Every structure is written in structure tokens, then in C-alpha cells.
């Protein structure tokens, strides 16, 4: 144990984490052109820029292509069950507020099988960054319709086209009490993606970022109209949201100054059809975090446990010295 300890101390003194410090020894196995790659890069960049100690960083995911995410990060990863990333992350954060918690989840993972947890996670508002990799399809299980699939999508379970209108993760999230941060990004504008993830990371509370993610394997060309026509993207800019670098601003001219404290407008923007809004839709830093509300005032020291147990036992103890007898009967 002695060797790494000194090494760590040395590292603290003279080492800066670089991008590679956040890359695991496993090369990502996503398809070429898969939007997940860009999301991974953005998160690694964030960790580097924020100099997050990898041992203090936990990335939790469910099951899906996107949920392979933690395997590719050099951090503590938790690749758990389909749909259950959020409750796992909550359990981690509750007792370990010192850890930086990220959640990677897919549209099936979050909005279908994990939908109950999603709604409640928003309500708990625990301090974590949740990235919804929304490719509008089930990738890992080879192309079934997801709750966010567009109506008419021909998939293996909807060969004649999906019958239902998709669920809108933004409007749903914005409808939950205690919502404190909602943003939308797209994988094909990496700079803005990074910028938004960074905003999300700095927000205290649950930051929910839906990332529209290209899946060339099963949804090839799905986002082409928006990728090819920047005017169909509406960038939300604000001093309290994101600001665009000049080169980006020049390409994406369809901009709206949107104050993230304006919940009403956030919902309108979230409901846009045709255009894809990108930016911070909503932010409210005043919403309390569940882990803070539940934080114990006293540490559970052995002494305290002994005291409390004895207090409880006292309430129900029969002491031998109790002077009790049955009534004298003759």
C-alpha cells in the first residue's frame, strides 16, 4: 500500500490530469459514426477541465449501447440494470456527496423501462448530471421502437410503422415538480455539447441533458435535415445559459435569447416541432437537493449508536429491581 500512497501524493503535487487519464484501457466499441462517441469525449473533456479526481468520479448507467459508457471512462463505473441507473446513482450520492456522479442512460432505459425512476429522480433533485442519449430507438437489442421514436418508424416490432406519437423527454421533465435543470444538446455540434454538459455539471441539483444522438446503424439519416440545415436548429443563448463562440454563431444563426428561469417559455421551446432547440431550457438553483435534506446532523459514531439503542431499550425494559408484585391473594 505504501507505494501507491506516495505516488498519489506526488501526483497531487505535480500532476495535472490529462484527457487520457479519463480514458479506460478499453477502446469504445460503438459503431463508427455513433453519436455516443462524441458524448464520451465531451464528458472526458469536462473531467479534464474540472480536474476531477478519477477516484472521486462515478459514472452510472443502465443497459443499452449508450450504457456501455462507464466502461470507457477511467473512473468508478457502474454498469447496472436496464432502467435502473437513476436509483443506483441516488443511492451512491445519498451517502457520498463527495463523489461526482454522472448518469448515462438511453431513451429506452430512461423513458420506457426506467420511466418511474426518471420522474422521481427529477423530484429528488440529487446533485448529479444525467445524460439521456436519445437515438430514438433501441440500439442494443437491434432496432425496436422506443418511446421517443417518431410516429411511423418502421422497426422490428413496428414493421408497419410506429403507431403512437413519441414522448417528449423535455416537456415531461419540465412538468415534474422540483425540476431544476433541463437542457438539450446534439452530438453533431461538439462544442455546444461540451458547453451544455459543463453547465449541467456546474448546476447544483439534478441536471437533465437530453442529447440527440445519431445511430447510423439503425436510424441512419434520421437527423440529416437538421445536420444539413443549421437554420432548423434553434440555439438558446443567454448570460445564464450558453454563449456561442463566434464561429458557431456564424453557422447557427437561428438563435433565441432565452432566460432559463422562464419555465413557461422553456416549455414552449421544448414543444417546438420542426426545429430542434439546443441550449439550457431551464435552470432553478433554488430547488433543494434530497441528499442535503436528508443529511444527518450527527455522524453515526459507535458512541451515538450505543446511546440511541439504550434510549430505545430503556423504553421497553423490565428491570429486575422493579418492585412489582401481583396483588396479594390469599
Amino acid at each position, binding site marked *: 500500500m505504501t*507505494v501507491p500512497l506516495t505516488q498519489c501524493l506526488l501526483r497531487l503535487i505535480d500532476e495535472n490530469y490529462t484527457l487520457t487519464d479519463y480514458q479506460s484501457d478499453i477502446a469504445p466499441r460503438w459503431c463508427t459514426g455513433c453519436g455516443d462517441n462524441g458524448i464520451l469525449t465531451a464528458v472526458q473533456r469536462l473531467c479534464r477541465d474540472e480536474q476531477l479526481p478519477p477516484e472521486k468520479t462515478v459514472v452510472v448507467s443502465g443497459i443499452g449501447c449508450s450504457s456501455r459508457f462507464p466502461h470507457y471512462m477511467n473512473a*468508478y463505473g457502474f*454498469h447496472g440494470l436496464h432502467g435502473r441507473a437513476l436509483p443506483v446513482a*441516488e443511492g451512491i450520492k445519498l451517502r457520498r456527496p463527495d463523489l461526482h456522479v454522472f448518469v448515462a442512460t438511453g431513451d429506452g432505459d430512461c423513458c420506457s423501462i426506467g420511466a418511474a425512476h426518471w420522474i422521481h429522480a427529477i423530484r429528488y433533485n440529487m446533485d448529479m448530471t444525467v445524460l439521456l442519449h436519445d437515438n430514438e430507438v433501441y440500439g442494443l437489442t437491434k432496432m425496436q421502437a422506443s418511446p421517443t421514436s417518431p410516429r411511423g418508424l418502421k422497426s422490428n416490432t413496428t414493421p408497419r410503422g410506429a403507431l403512437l406519437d413519441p414522448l417528449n423527454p423535455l416537456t415531461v421533465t419540465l412538468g415534474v415538480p422540483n425540476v431544476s435543470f433541463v437542457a438539450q444538446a446534439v452530438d453533431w455540434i461538439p462544442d455546444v455539447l461540451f458547453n451544455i454538459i459543463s453547465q449541467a455539471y456546474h448546476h447544483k441539483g439534478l441536471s437533465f441533458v437530453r442529447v440527440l444522438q445519431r445511430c447510423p446503424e439503425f436510424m441512419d439519416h434520421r437527423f440529416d435535415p437538421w445536420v444539413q440545415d443549421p437554420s432548423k436548429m434553434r440555439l438558446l443563448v443567454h448570460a445564464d445559459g450558453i454563449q456561442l463562440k463566434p464561429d458557431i454563431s456564424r453557422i447557427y444563426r437561428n438563435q433565441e435569447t432565452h432566460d432559463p428561469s422562464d419555465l413557461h417559455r422553456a416549455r414552449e421551446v421544448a414543444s417546438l416541432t420542426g426545429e430542434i432547440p439546443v441550449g439550457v431550457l431551464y435552470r432553478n438553483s433554488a430547488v433543494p437537493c434530497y441528499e442535503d435534506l436528508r443529511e444527518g446532523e450527527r455522524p453515526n459514531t459507535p458512541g451515538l449508536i450505543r446511546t440511541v439503542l439504550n434510549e430505545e*431499550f430503556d423504553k421497553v425494559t*423490565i428491570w429486575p429491581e422493579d418492585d412489582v*408484585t401481583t396483588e396479594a391473594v390469599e
Partner: protein
Amino acid sequence: MTTDLYQETDKTRTRRARSDPSASDSATAASRTSRANSAAKPVVTLKEHIVEIVSDSGEGAQRCGQSFGAIAARIGNGIWTVEIIPAEIQPPARSIAGTSGNRVRLASHRVTNGGDEADLVVAFNEQVLLNRLRAGEIKHNGIILLENKWQNDGNAAIAASYAQVREQVSSAGYRLYEIPMEEECLKYVPDPRRGKNMFALGMLCCIYSFDLDLAREQVRFVFRKKDEKVIDLNLELLAAGHAWAGANLDLKFAIPAERPREPQVVMNGNTALALGVVASGMEVCSMYPITPATSASHYLSDIFEKVGCVVHQAEDEIAACTFAVGASYAGKCAVTITSGPGLSLKQEGIGLAVMGEIPLVVVDVQRGGPSTGQPTKAEQGDLLAACFGGHGDAPKVVIAASSIEDCFYSIIMARKIAENFNMVVVVLSDASLATAQQPFPRPRFNEDWLAPPINQSPVPDGARPYDWDPRTGLSSRFIPGQPNGMHCLTGLAHDRDSHVAYDPDVNQEGIRHRSLKLAALQKTLKAPTLYGDDEGDLLLVGWGSTRGAIEEAVDTLRAEGLRASSMNLKFLQPMATGIKELLERFDKVMTIESNWCDSLDDELIAEDNRRYSSLALLLRARHLIDVDCWGDARGQPLKPGDIVRAARRKLEQR
């Protein structure tokens, strides 16, 4: 059972307490008093009695019963209390299904179960009495103290129903006393629905020769959060009941008590579970409400924050379990408390903890199943689900609590095993322990019970997250925050580095090591001790809550000269070494369980299709021994008498 009630007997033994409402002037009252007292009421000394107090819910029979039990315990009687709980919160008044109350078994010796039929029942109306009669819970010649206000009820149907039950009960040989509880209580309170229970408590204290001052203390304790007026009123009612019984009833019992030499605590199984959680040093309990487990979490919610810990009510059991898994992964072992339906929902999360080798304690306070089943009733139906419930091969530890005291210590033990072996430990309790109260020696807190602080020191270079010991399967656990320990825990099959297994041998290796851990634990277990002789004609084998009833049955059988013994298994998975040798010392072996098994008396049932009780199945599979089973899934705690009869039948079989 109901036949008892309708059996005609020649002697009508009704003893109406002579309190004709028309003749309640003080002169008669005085003469009655003197008659009862001066006739030197014979005090009958008893070894034990079973008392039931039943009412509509909301009339306080439960509180009366609990207080009665508490007083008996303080005197030094052995007690066991059983709650009689209606399924609904506000069932209709005067309904058989809505019966609410308590059974108190009190004895001059230690009591380990609720016993057989009741000796004395206090009923606030004839419908709740019918509940007990129909369930066969009252002794043939049992004493019944029945509220008599219904005889003159304005509603003719009620009066008629009362009269009918009165006649049936009397003619069936019960000793019926009709008590003017309402009338007497009206002297103190405008609405005796509140307060009658204390009057009843006073009567019982008189009948069982309890010291009235002690009863007063208990009443003060029960109402300690209420204001003085309420306390005084209840004290008056208590004294009134006591005086009334003294003056009007020819019932006077004494059950000799021996004051405990060591301090004792009295609580129910769920309270003991909750205190066990505190004493184990676990810091997070995540749960979703479900009967009969919830009261453990209620109590824990009350006290857990005092030690800086959290009860988290999750959005469902899946979240409750995975939340606990997350908390365990990043900190000390966490616990999730549930009952059958919740256990089903938690299975995938339990499998994840098994696969990731994350310590986790799962408490299942079993109830009747499947589906919603019998929420408030006892059943041992989840043993196989606990052992094998999830998909795939998921070795985990399963232990069962066999008494109230054991509920407390089982949790401490579970936490230790979970953390020492990085395993899931399922603790099985059930509805019969959940609400039953029993005194046991006050635990003396021991720091060894607690989890050590989590390791946050750097992981040595070259250490691997699943560095399975080839002999024991054990590996260390890297906890977030530990420098140099970064890895991705996964529910996928994985190798020693926690990398996803693509090689078939890697999966085989992982399963092997997770399986070996059970064997490593098993090597530390001692064979259970037998109750009774070490060999004989019949061994009764049980697990969990049925221990007390089975051992009492063995006492009875042995007193009859039969060569029977019993064994209680705390560890159901893994099972200790040496069990087979113990089984082989007996001619016949039969499990006694509160769960279903097919009967060979049924036309279609034969050896090759008979569904065995859970433990019988496990023992047969493991030991290749012909283990028979006797099961009861009616939802009531097993009765020693029923076990005795089943054992006799088994002994008579050739």
C-alpha cells in the same frame, strides 16, 4: 371448528353477570360486591392462560391487549402476544372480518409462541366473538366475557343476532359472562367506544390478580403523549373495570410469576429488526411500504436519523433495492426491507448485487402469497424465492429469524456476513414474528456489531477488483474514493478486472468463485443443536418463526413418552455441515412449515407429483433422505397442538 359452537350440550353453563340495567341502584350493587368478595372468591392458580381481547377496529382492543401483556411481562410472567388484525383500515363495525384485537398468552414460564386455543375471551360485540369461534380459536369450555349492550339494541336485527349467538355459545358449553361494559363506562365517558378498552383492562387485571398500581403505571405510560385529563379518565375507567370485576365476577386467577434476574426488553419482531439495523451500523435503509414489513421501517424512520442515518422511501421496490445497491457500492452495506411481492420485484436488483459482489441485506417479512395473497397473515412461502428467486445462478445467503430476539441478532449477523463475503444476505421473518411481542434479555451493545468505516485508502498497484481467491472465491471490494481502484462494475459476466467476459471460460470462472463463497461460509457454520434427544423415532425440522411452537409440541410428545425431537434451521442457504448425520439418527423426519404441501390423501397426489413444503424439498434434494412434510397455509401462526397431532399421525404410520 364451527361445529363446536353448534354442538348441543345438556348443561347450560351461562353465568350472566347479574347486572340487569333496570336494577342498578347502589343497594344491589353493594350487595353484589359483598357477595363476590366475602364469599372468599376461590383463587385458581394456573400455569398459563391464553387471553384474547377483540373489538371492532378503533375500539382499542389492541391497546388493551398490549397493555395487559406488558403488565404481565413486568410482573415476570412469560408472555407472547399476537395481533389480530383486520385487512382493512376501517372495516365496517360489527363485522366478523373486521375483528381487531390481541391474543396474550401468559405463563409462569417462558413462552415462545401464541399457543393453542384461548382460555378467556373479552369481546366487545357478538360478531367479533363469532370471528374467534369460527376460527376455532376458543377452547371448548372457554370463558367468554361479552359486552351485553347489544341485547337491547334499537335495531331488532342486532338484538336478535346477539340473542342467537348468546344461545349458541351457552349451549355449546362455553362459560359466558355478559358484561354491562357500555353501561358502566357511560358513568365516566359520553362515548364508551373510547375508553371501554381500559375498563376491560381493569377487569382483566382483577381477574388475573395483577397489582392495580402497576396497571396504572402502564396506562400512564401508554397515554404519556396525551394530556392529564385523558390520562385521568383512562385511569378511572381502569379502576372501574377492576372494581366491577371484583364485585361481580367469580373469576380469580393467579399465574405465579418469577421476576427476571436480568433486564428484559419487550418488543415485537419488527421493532427488533429495526433496532438490529441500528445496532449493525448500517446507514441506509431503502424501502417501499408493504404489510407486514412496514412497521419496521416506521420505527426505524423514527430513530434512524438520531444516529445520522436514513430511511429512504423509494418510488417502488425495484428502486428501493437498486438504491440500496448503490448505497452499498459506495459506502457501508445497506438494507432494504420488504415482504413477498416486494421480494419478487427486487430479484433483478438482488442478482445485480450478487453479480457485482456488492454486500446487501434484504429483509423479507413474509406474508401469504402468491400475488397480493394474505397481506396481514403469516406464511413461510418465500423460502425458495429467497434462495433461488432470481434468474440465473445467483448464490446468496438466506437466514431466518426464529424468535423476536433472533430478529435483532439476525440483522447484525446478516450485515457481517454480507460485508465479509461481499454477498447478498436475505433475512426471513414473517407476519407472525412481525407483530408478536415477547420479552428477551436486554442486548448489551457491542462495538463489534458495527461495520468498520469504509476503506478509502489507495488500492495497491496490481490489485484487481475481482481478485478471487481460488480456494474461497473471496475478493476485495474497491469503494469509490479509493485512489487507484477505478474499474467499471458490471452486471455482465466479467473477469478479474471487471472487464466484460467474451471468453466462455471467464464466465465459468466467475460463477465458480461466487459459488465458492457459499462453501467458504458453510465451513464456518456449526450443525444446529437438536431439541430433545439426539436420536429417536421422529425428528421435526422447522425454520424461522415456527421454532417455539415446534419445540413446545416436542415437549408434549415427549411427556407422552414419544421419542420425538426437533431441529430449527437458521441457515437455509448454505446449510451447515452435519445436518444429514442428525437426520439419520431418526426413523422418520418431517418438516413442519407454514406453507403449502400436497397431501397424499388427495386422489391425484402421489410420490411422483407431490409438491413438498420448501424446506422438505431442500433437505430431500441435498441429503437424499426421505423427508416428509406437514404444512399449514391458513395464515395463522402454527399451533403446538396441531403439530402434536401431525407428529402423532406420522409416528403411527408404518
